């Protein structure tokens, strides 16, 4: 099966938050206790009960005024996920089709996935004790719907077509064509000339296009190499080398020191 992906077109998004609600409905997630923080943004970030969140940001429109910018904030389902690499017990795994899924019954709750994720996506159930069994929560790409031939709930509900579901390669082509088309029609302000997620951190299954620079949307600026390049290099090369080197080196030092002391003892004797 080809790799699946979701394309988010921020130019088409009206910020209705239908996707956020559809996600909660499909997965039966409870409402959050919210607090007024002085902006439309509520709740402030994804959490164990909110796997998909529309972020409302006011950005400079270049004319002294502000403009809404919307960001779909949820798991990016990276092609080379840092969380999967970071998980010591393999509770997180990357499926062939694209979704990054989680075995709750393997998780030990070390929360290294939360630290490792460059998008700050995995969240933890902070208010569950030993008997309820806290687990990590994040977007599951509606893997149950996808395997039944349906679109993810968020895509299905989007009224403006700002969310599209399909094969990753095709969606990249769609996104690039849309950027090019806007430019040829004289509307370069509609799209920044960049498909976010095509190459970031080795590529993600969530692709973003839109009128604002992605930093303004709060998306991290990432290079094309996977986040875990250094740690996996350490684990596959440095650690075995140090392990063998230390065992051999220390045994050698012990042997040399002991032999020298014996020689000295003989001399003295």
């Amino acid at each position, binding site marked *: 099966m080809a790799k699946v992906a979701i394309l988010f077109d921020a130019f088409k998004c009206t910020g209705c938050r239908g996707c956020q609600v559809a996600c909660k409905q499909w997965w039966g997630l409870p409402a959050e206790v919210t607090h007024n923080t002085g902006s439309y943004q509520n709740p402030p970030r994804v959490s164990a009960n909110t796997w998909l969140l529309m972020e409302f940001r006011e950005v400079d429109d270049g004319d002294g005024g502000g403009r809404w910018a919307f960001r779909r904030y949820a798991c990016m389902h990276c092609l080379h996920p*840092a969380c999967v*690499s970071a998980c010591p*017990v393999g509770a997180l795994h990357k499926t062939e089709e694209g979704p990054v899924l989680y075995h709750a019954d393997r998780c030990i*709750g070390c929360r290294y996935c939360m630290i490792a994720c460059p998008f*700050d996506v995995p969240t933890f159930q902070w208010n569950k004790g*030993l008997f309820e069994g806290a687990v990590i929560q994040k977007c599951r790409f509606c893997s149950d719907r996808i395997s039944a031939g349906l679109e993810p709930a968020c895509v299905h509900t989007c009224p403006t077509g700002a969310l599209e579901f399909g094969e990753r390669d095709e969606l990249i082509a769609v996104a690039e064509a849309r950027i090019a088309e806007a430019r040829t029609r004289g509307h370069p302000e509609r799209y920044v000339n960049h498909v976010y997620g095509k190459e970031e951190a080795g590529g993600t299954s969530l692709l973003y296009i839109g009128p604002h620079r992605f930093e303004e949307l709060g998306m991290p600026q990432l290079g094309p190499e996977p*986040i875990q390049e250094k740690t996996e290099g350490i*684990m596959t090369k440095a650690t075995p080398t*140090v392990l063998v080197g230390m065992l051999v080196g220390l045994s050698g030092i012990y042997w040399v020191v002991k032999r020298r002391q014996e020689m000295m003892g003989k001399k003295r004797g």
Partner: protein
Amino acid sequence: MIRGIALRRLSIPPAVIVLLGLMAIGCVVAVIRYVNGIGAISNLDDSTGWGLWISFDLLCGVALAAGAFVTASFVYLFGQEKYRPVLRPAILTGFLGYLMVIVALMVDLGRPERIWYLIIFWNYHSVMFEVGWCVMLYTFVLALEFSPLVFERFGLEAPRRLIHALIIPLAIAGATLSTLHQSSLGSLYTILPDQLNKIWYTPLLPLMFWLTAVAVGPAMVIVESSISSRVFRRGLELDLLSGLARVIPFVLAAYAVVKIGDLAGSGELDLLTKWNLAAGLWWLEMIGFVLLPIVLFSLPAVRRSSTWLLFSALLVVSEVVLSRFAVSLINLSRPDFSVRYLPHPMEFAITISVISAGVLAFGLVARYLPLFVEHAPEPAGK
């Protein structure tokens, strides 16, 4: 008779009562955590997944336990037999340090009842996999290195001989596992190239964590010997401690070279000229806790004074605490959630309680087991 009983009761030192009280508070807080979750006793949240317990109890705890492997390597592998009198307390400090780390982890881990899953589910690409295995294996090695005290106390000659026969492989395994463990704690943070401040992020973090652990090993032996000589009113092996102190400047100098060389190599030295928290901490660490102890430990006058030795050793301990917090908490931020995390009082209660248990356990071992011996008895015919 009544008077006699009253006097006996008074013989529990007030310090022990204070320690037991602190432990009791920690136990109550732990119960709240097990019933209502980590959120009920901490200020940790989805933006700050790791806090005080990881930075202090785990990272500092493991580093400050380094006296055990450094001293054991000196005595068993490098032929420095003269350090044997400080070996047992050093092993005990390391062993208790690791046990304290595990106790703290049983609070911090989301699913403490599944900690053993590390044994059956493997993902060897994860640095946390290495960390977990090193904790398990090295704690086991430390327990074996410590066990002769128990065997001697109860006159169990056969197992004592067995450990004695295995002591060289144990020392080699201990130093190897320690090296892997200390460095892997640094490796954990190499997965954060974009989130850790540029001054503090480097792929050389594992090397830096290991070097500072090697430096703080002898420093911890000095601290622990100085304190226990006062508490248990015994002599101080000043000549031994000053011998250990000689090593520290070399290790700290190597650390400074790596640290400056790394920034120079990546062309980031100019970041140090800006006045911000990350740069300020860097200068504080380098001048106050690296250069100053290098100078102090190099002075014979300092090495001859028990007070100055203790002061200089505490500087090295501070260096480790500062650098661990700097990497794991202070300079770790995401531009968007510039959350200000301050540990909850109940987080401190757990940490203080774990330290109290460690101090009390050290006191009990010193009281009831042969901890302070001039020379460990060797079996005849060696």
